[in-house]
């Protein structure tokens, strides 16, 4: 049964995300302009304005388990046009971090894995390396040949380097990997 009751909601969650995102969430009047202009809305499970409404209720689980939080690309179209000057983009960020922190199983495992791999590569090297990232992404998402054809093409055109660049400042690498482990 999918009925909302006040008891099932978590109002503190609203406050928390309000603080984390720096947005005034109760200001949202559900106009729907964010959804209307979002380039990815057609792929979302929860629409941006519904995200805002769910927050006003405090429907924490729905949000942390949503595809939305992983699919929002933070393009800020919503932020730019919202008549109440709210940034759903910032809210998505805050929710995503919250999901990571709470160890929620991501609804979009590939996206989550991507972020993880990305951070992994840069904590190793301080810089990104596409071959490594693509390889890791494919290994971890069990799609070993995805994008491989693109890769060969790039390699032949001389656009792929096979050896990663690495920054010299080892102290900084340690600092960021420490920061990552804390989560």
């Amino acid at each position, binding site marked *: 049964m999918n009925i909302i009751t006040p008891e099932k909601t978590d109002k503190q969650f609203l406050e928390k995300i309000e603080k984390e995102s720096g947005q005034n969430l109760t200001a949202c*009047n*559900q*106009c*729907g*302009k*964010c*959804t*209307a*202009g*979002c380039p990815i*809305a*057609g792929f979302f499970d*929860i*629409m941006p*304005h*519904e995200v805002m409404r769910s927050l006003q209720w405090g429907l924490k689980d729905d949000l942390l388990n949503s595809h939305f939080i992983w699919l929002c690309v933070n393009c800020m*179209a919503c932020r730019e*046009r*919202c*008549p*109440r*000057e709210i940034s759903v983009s910032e809210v998505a960020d805050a929710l995503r971090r919250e999901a990571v922190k709470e160890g929620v199983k991501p609804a979009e495992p590939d996206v989550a894995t991507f972020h993880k791999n990305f951070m992994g590569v840069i904590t190793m090297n301080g810089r990104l390396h596409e071959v490594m990232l693509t390889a890791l992404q494919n290994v971890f998402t069990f799609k070993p040949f995805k994008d491989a054809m693109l890769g060969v093409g790039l390699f032949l055109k001389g656009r792929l380097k096979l050896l990663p660049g690495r920054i010299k400042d080892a102290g900084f690498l340690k600092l960021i990997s420490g920061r990552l482990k804390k989560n």
Partner: protein
Amino acid sequence: MPRIGVFICHCGINIEKTVDTAKVAEAARSFPGVVFAADYKYMCSDPGQNMILDAIREYNLDRIVVGACSPSLHEPTFQACVAKADLNPYFFEMANLREQVSWVTHDREMATEKAIQAVRMAVAKAGKSEPLASQSLPITKKALVIGGGISGIQAALDIAEAGFPVILVEREPSIGGRMAQLDKTFPTLDCSACILTPKMVEAARNPNITIHTYAEVENVAGFIGNFEVTIRKKARSIDMSKCTGCGVCYEKCPVKVPNKFEEGTGERKAIYVPFPQAVPNKPVIDREVCLHFTKGKCGICAKMCPAEAVVYNQEDEVITEKVGAIIVATGFDLFDTKRYEEYAGGAHPDMITSLQFERLINASGPTQGKLRRPSDGKEPETIVFIQCVGSRDDKMGRPYCSRICCMYTAKQTILVREKFPNARIFVFFMDIRTAGKNYEEFCRRAIEDYNAEYIRGRVSKIYPSGDKLIVEGSDTILGRPVEIAADLVVLAAGAEARADAKDLARMLGIQTDQYNFFSEAHAKLRPVETMTGGIFLAGACQFPRDIPDCVASASASAAKALALFGKPELASLPTVAKVDESRCSGCMACLSVCPYSAVTMEEVKNKSGGIREVARVNPGVCQGCGACAAACNAGVIDLLGYTNEQIACQVDAALL
């Protein structure tokens, strides 16, 4: 020693909630001069006022202090109350414990402390109060109405019918305002011209009404009952007494420019009548574009005119008029939809404003009522209306609801449906606001009988693709994005204050709100009065209003002006400046700062018989600003009701 009574109001719980009123009354009992103090639930109620009257009798009180709401709300109430007990109204003082204490302080202890302080100051001031009286002043029983839209016309007619003369000043060449631009009007769908034109003609015919079109008010001096206004009648280049309105002149004029009345959808000539039903129905030459004025050639209109009415060298005429009341009815502007860059910059030909729509669907409009796509003249098959454009949008600095656009959009869907039985008509809305008599029913008809498809969601983007406009919106009820390829998009542009409203407010000495609409004295109790005596508001210049509301407020403001004219004379302001002539050195510092020239220098005889000049105040002219009192170093000229002594006592009491 004065005998002061103090009354502390709970205002239900409004004050009592954060202020311990009993404690305030208790504290008041120890203030110098206080012989009686009490607290009560509602001081402004009849029992509350009776309590004051009883206490005056029982304790022989001669000064009254009430600690309650803001004096701007109930000072007159209590002044009238003490007058009943034969006390001078200026023996009454008010301490503001609600707006400035209980509503802005949450800590009860601090609020109580602040309240005691405020009452102490009021008591100190009351202790030094003197009886003040007003003088009687004459009233010029003639009204000025600024703005000749439906509101101004209605106000003028009401006053004229009561038998008083009215001067109606309209800056366009014709009266009529926005209503003249409309097609049919909600909620009854009568044709706008059919109900407006008779009123315009009636105003023109009424012997009590003098209409100055193509004119503007340039200066306003004086005060309630006694204003003096300067009006500039711009040169029309037409001798109005000769012109018969035959229209030959503009047929042959070679210059064509966009017609402002048609909202740019049609053209007019350099010599023109803005619309066929114009009042007065006589042309005007637009000197900015007329070839005679820009290039020094042409002159066709003068040649054509059989009445020899074209006068190129006519000059502006400046007239002055004395009036007793002023009604401001200058109406509203439309939000500039180009500010929405995401709506293709608001600039595509097939994207029009709601007012352009009114012109395009109007049988006397530029297309004779044939609604076609402006870009290619094709019949539109899909029409999208978008509500709240430039309203309810903090980003655009317009957080308010424009109040009229829900209804006129519903009307416009009905009007298009009548022309195109098979078109698909969509409306994007945030809420449907239809709080009016028969309004909700009207809107339901648009949806159920006229098959307008309403979608709840705001539009984020509009862009051209091929020969269509793609409208990206959302349906928030279904929770899905919506995309519609439209032939025609109509933007329900919000209403905003006239661009020059602020200037007019300055000239009149009235206030504006944060959106530059004119402010009423009190939202509920004095909705058509301004804070400045004798100046009233009518119609959409105060806030977005539809025609029924405009007419109601216009009649209300006329009633206020008539109430003024109904008095035999006017009581002057009692709180005016007063000079202690014996001490005046005649330095003229006061005279030089008085904005109303209320101070003059008069010769008086010294004790020794010599002649010297001293300042003297005309209490009928003085408006009680106190600039003179602040300018006089010797404290010779003082402001009654706010005397130097009273202020000093308040300062001292504040710091005890």
